[in-house]
């Protein structure tokens, strides 16, 4: 069995078709899209074709797509391009650091920020958004799907509240784009960030949807590229790659790809629940992206399980590994009310478009073996078993 990559929420493999689409733009078609001669116009045409493909994926107008370097820039841009001292921002406690750390910085500069909690399933309550509105609320920023749990937020309700209150609305759709049908009109958002490398395009490219008429100031100031919304020569091969990946994702979604992926994930969770006792699937009671399964295994450390699986060439992730140099459990799980022990015992499995049943079967068998081995070593697990003789209940949170 070749290595099994189940960390697609961290990054995805560049699809061969995407690489082939990009290849000429490194060497033969290397023009600057701002140049007026043939080579430059060839580059311009490629950029605009990619813009159309990204717009189609999001249900947007191509003129509303601004290419940038990725999700972090898009998130930063959405906030810093709109908000200034004296404004109020509403966001949630489970946002990506690209949102949370910008908000923290802005707080020092005279911006007030409300960080909304989430419930036990990891969802923001839209009524909390409404209750947090103030006269000076400038922006609401709530992510579409969480990177840790895959839990999808009630964005249509939040978008409606934002529209009624006449407040700008941004969503970080980095983990949703290409996995869910993302349509900006349905969400009623004004800004939406996506990242190329989360949908089989290369790292270092992304896009921000900016609804026509949104008064966003550029974050990177330079030339007039991207209609004065993002200075700097366009990353031509990256943009072509993102366009191709967006086109593939649109077809994949239309062809039932998300449903097939959800079935692989659901079958995996069902078998794991049947075979292993005392596991907890986080966010199971909420809508989730079809590729994400965040599971805690009582009695062991998620970090150790991740390394043990890596030894068998199964790549998964944990947000609580000592290996990452951070001994704190994932803040997203703590925000959902998980105890630290359980949060530390969590591993995230995130499937990709290329993940096969055979790979999931292999991952399952490795998982069963390694969980059993670590639990045998665990003083906590041994004591639990002594106290609860014969218990085999699986609990889902």
């Amino acid at each position: 069995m070749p290595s099994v990559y189940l960390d697609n929420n961290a990054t995805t493999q560049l699809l061969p078709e995407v690489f082939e689409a990009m290849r000429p733009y490194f060497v033969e078609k290397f023009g600057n899209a701002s140049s007026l001669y043939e080579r430059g116009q060839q580059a311009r045409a490629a950029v605009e074709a990619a813009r159309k493909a990204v717009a189609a994926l999001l249900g947007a107008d191509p003129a509303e797509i601004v290419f940038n370097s990725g999700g972090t820039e898009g998130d930063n841009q959405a906030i810093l391009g709109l908000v200034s001292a004296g404004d109020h921002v509403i966001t949630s406690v489970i946002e990506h650091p690209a949102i949370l750390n910008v908000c923290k910085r802005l707080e020092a500069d005279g911006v007030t920020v409300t960080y909304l909690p989430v419930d036990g399933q990891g969802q923001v309550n839209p009524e909390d958004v409404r209750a947090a509105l103030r006269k000076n609320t400038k922006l609401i920023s709530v992510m579409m799907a969480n990177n840790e749990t895959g839990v999808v937020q009630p964005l249509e309700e939040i978008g409606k509240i934002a529209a009624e209150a006449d407040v700008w609305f941004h969503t970080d759709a980095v983990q949703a784009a290409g996995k869910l049908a993302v349509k900006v009109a349905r969400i009623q958002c004004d800004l939406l960030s996506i990242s190329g490398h989360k949908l089989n395009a290369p790292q270092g490219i992304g896009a921000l949807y900016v609804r026509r008429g949104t008064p966003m100031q550029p974050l990177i100031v330079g030339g007039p590229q991207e209609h004065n919304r993002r200075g700097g020569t366009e990353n031509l091969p990256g943009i072509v790659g993102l366009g191709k990946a967006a086109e593939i994702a649109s077809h994949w979604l239309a062809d039932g790809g998300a449903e097939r992926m959800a079935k692989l994930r659901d079958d995996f969770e069902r078998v794991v629940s049947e075979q292993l006792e005392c596991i907890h699937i986080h966010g199971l009671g909420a809508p989730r992206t079809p590729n994400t399964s965040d599971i805690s295994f009582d009695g062991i450390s998620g970090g150790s399980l991740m390394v043990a699986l890596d030894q068998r060439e199964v790549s998964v992730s944990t947000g609580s590994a000592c290996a990452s140099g951070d001994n704190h459990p994932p803040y997203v799980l703590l925000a959902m009310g998980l105890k630290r022990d359980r949060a530390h015992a969590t591993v995230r499995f995130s499937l990709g478009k290329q993940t096969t049943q055979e790979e999931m079967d292999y991952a399952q068998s490795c998982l069963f073996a390694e969980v059993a081995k670590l639990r045998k070593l665990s003083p906590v697990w041994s004591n639990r078993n002594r106290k609860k003789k014969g218990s085999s209940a699986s609990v889902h949170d």
Partner: protein
Amino acid sequence: MYSTLVMDHFTNTRNSGVLPDANAVARVENPVCGDMLELSLRVEDQTILEARFRAKGCVPTIACASRLTEMIQGTNLTDALAIRRESIIESLGGIPETSVHAAQLSIDALHCSLNCLSAPGKP
């Protein structure tokens, strides 16, 4: 990320389990990350004859505990108590700086177990 020796001790743990006739047992926990280590020793005539461990925690926690049991078996108590966390880390070919707490947990378990040492055969 981890040295070959750390990975070896993690994958092929030495002396894991519980000693039924232990006369020095301790369980310690790192309150920050929740790692837990249980050490059981059989001590006679001021010498650690056998050591076993069980652990729940990160890779370095398991590797350090496994290595510690190798280092202390057959060692007299004075020498065992002189072992510092740096000795464990060095003997494993190093561990990440952020994981030094893992070696400290092993030292804490050793000291804690010897503090509650009872007479042989009377755990």
